[in-house]
């Protein structure tokens, strides 16, 4: 009896926490369908005009495509660098603790400090207000997530497979693509997903290094909130929630698929 009571309390508590976490999303999504220019909740009608606006308003549309481009490039760059780094950290023990600490430091460093430091460095390198600058800056922030995701898979990877492949006539590069990569692929893919999201919703560094040429979606949202009350903001926010959710779902589906195949 007592156990079922604590169970019930736990269930209620979990529901409360979930509501707290989802509440902002539950508010922002209805707002995005509002028929008028006010952030009134609940909205007084239904309209898709703010979604249409994302694609017709130049400022919104260009920042959306820029954000998607940058996030895709960051996903590619940081997945390659992060995967190779994770492999090196695991297989080359010398100095790996130190190098790992350096590579993961952007994760523990307060975002504003990284942003200021990168801003002043990019001033010298003339990388502020450039696509390259965004890709480099966001990759630095995203690489730790890739490393951690890949490390989890490398942990259970048997390095004897590399030795076996070598005796079977496989050159190291071929072994990497045919033997190692397929086995750590779930980690690599979730690393790529996290890297994409990290870049896609990054705002602190973006505010520092943005300019007239490159302005990502979160920067545009920030400007929009400060300068005007444009409900397109809530449509964009809903869109971002959907993109992030889809990516996280893809990541977890690829993981469970792998698991169920193992159990079969």
């Amino acid at each position, binding site marked *: 009896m007592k156990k079922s009571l604590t169970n019930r309390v736990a269930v209620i508590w979990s529901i409360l926490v979930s509501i707290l976490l989802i509440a902002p999303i539950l508010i922002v999504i209805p707002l995005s369908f509002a028929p008028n220019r006010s952030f009134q909740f609940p909205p007084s009608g239904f309209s898709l005009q703010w979604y249409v606006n994302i694609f017709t308003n130049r400022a919104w549309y260009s920042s959306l495509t820029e954000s998607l481009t940058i996030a895709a490039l960051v996903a590619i760059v940081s997945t390659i660098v992060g995967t190779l780094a994770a492999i090196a950290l695991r297989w080359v023990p010398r100095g790996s603790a130190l190098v790992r600490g350096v590579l993961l430091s952007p994760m523990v460093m307060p975002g504003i400090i990284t942003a200021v430091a990168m801003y002043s460095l990019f001033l010298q390198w003339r990388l502020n207000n450039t696509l390259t600058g965004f890709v480099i800056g966001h990759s630095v922030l995203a690489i730790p997530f890739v490393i951690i995701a890949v490390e989890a898979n490398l942990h259970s990877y*048997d390095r*004897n*497979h590399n*030795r*076996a*492949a*070598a*005796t*079977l*006539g*496989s*050159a*190291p590069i*071929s072994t990497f693509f*045919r*033997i190692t990569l*397929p*086995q750590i692929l779930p980690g690599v893919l979730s690393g790529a997903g996290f890297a994409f999201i990290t870049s896609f919703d990054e705002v602190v560094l973006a505010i520092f290094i943005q300019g007239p040429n490159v302005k990502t979606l979160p920067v545009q949202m920030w400007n929009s909130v400060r300068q005007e009350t444009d409900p397109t903001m809530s449509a964009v926010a809903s869109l971002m929630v959907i993109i992030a959710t889809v990516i996280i779902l893809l990541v977890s589906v690829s993981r469970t698929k792998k698991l169920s195949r*193992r159990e079969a």
Partner: protein
Amino acid sequence: MSETRAVSGAKIELSGLTKRYPQSDHAAVDDVDLLIEPGEFISFLGPSGSGKTTTLNMIAGLEQPSAGEVRFDDIDVSHRPAYKRNIGMVFQNYALFPHLTVGSNVAFPLKRRGVRGPDLKEKVKNALALVGLEGFGDRKPDQLSGGQRQRVALARALVYEPSILLMDEPLGALDKNLRGQLQGEIRSLHQRLGVTVIFVTHDQGEALSMSDRIAIFNAGKVHQLGTGDELYRRPKDLFVTNFLGGANVIPIDRAGALLQAAGVSPTSDSAYAMVRPENVAVGQPTSQSEQVVMPAVVSDFINLGDFFEVTVDVDGLGSVHSKMLAEHPVPFAVGERTSISIPKDGVLLVRP
């Protein structure tokens, strides 16, 4: 891999082969010279840490020697990477690729060699048939038992007809019955294919039953190389003596009477007299003249059913172990005064 064509094995020559690790004072492999004949089945036998696996890895190209040479058929391959040596290798933990099917595992080395199409299929099929796994091609390794996995590993290592097959404790993870069965299968594969086999093991029974010759490793050196029979009957030193089978080892200064009676004269480098337990017979001596007979007192007796293990005290020699075929009724009791007899050619001299 057709039944009619025997693959001819390669000659393997190690000269001055040495491996040192930076952190260690002792060489893991210390100046090993070894000549392995084409088509030979040789075992590297020794305790763990004796350097046998490191030597095997240097032959495979998985480790770089610090000094010395590895030659296959008189060609120096010391600096050739493993993937260019065209050897087959089987590991203790199978090392099958878990994301590939059994068929793809076996096809892997063929594809690296550019084999494609129907030829590929045919060879994979034949290799799986060779190890008795026809029809297993579509399974994943984790759907197989340990014995089946090691058979797949064997098929994968043989499918491209290498002239050298290296096996690193391949049966160490299997239970006893399966081990015996696979020992026979490996032996008959070797005879059919003619491939040169190096088989690393720490199990002396396995080495004795499978090999043409055995190299006994200890502390990075080959102590002795020979047939199982030679090693058992003529062990050169104390390590080999103790590693293969049981032995009564008596320091030379206490063995004077025994050696004199057996007509054996020690040389300057002999440190021990040695008698195998099965050469010691307890009880009243038979009338054969080529025997050393000494008085003894039975101090311990174990009946193993088909064998007796008897321990006796012998004046001057101390405790001596005997292993003899069982006789019924048991012809002696603990504490009984009796005698032991040892054939004269059963008394050997051993170096330190």
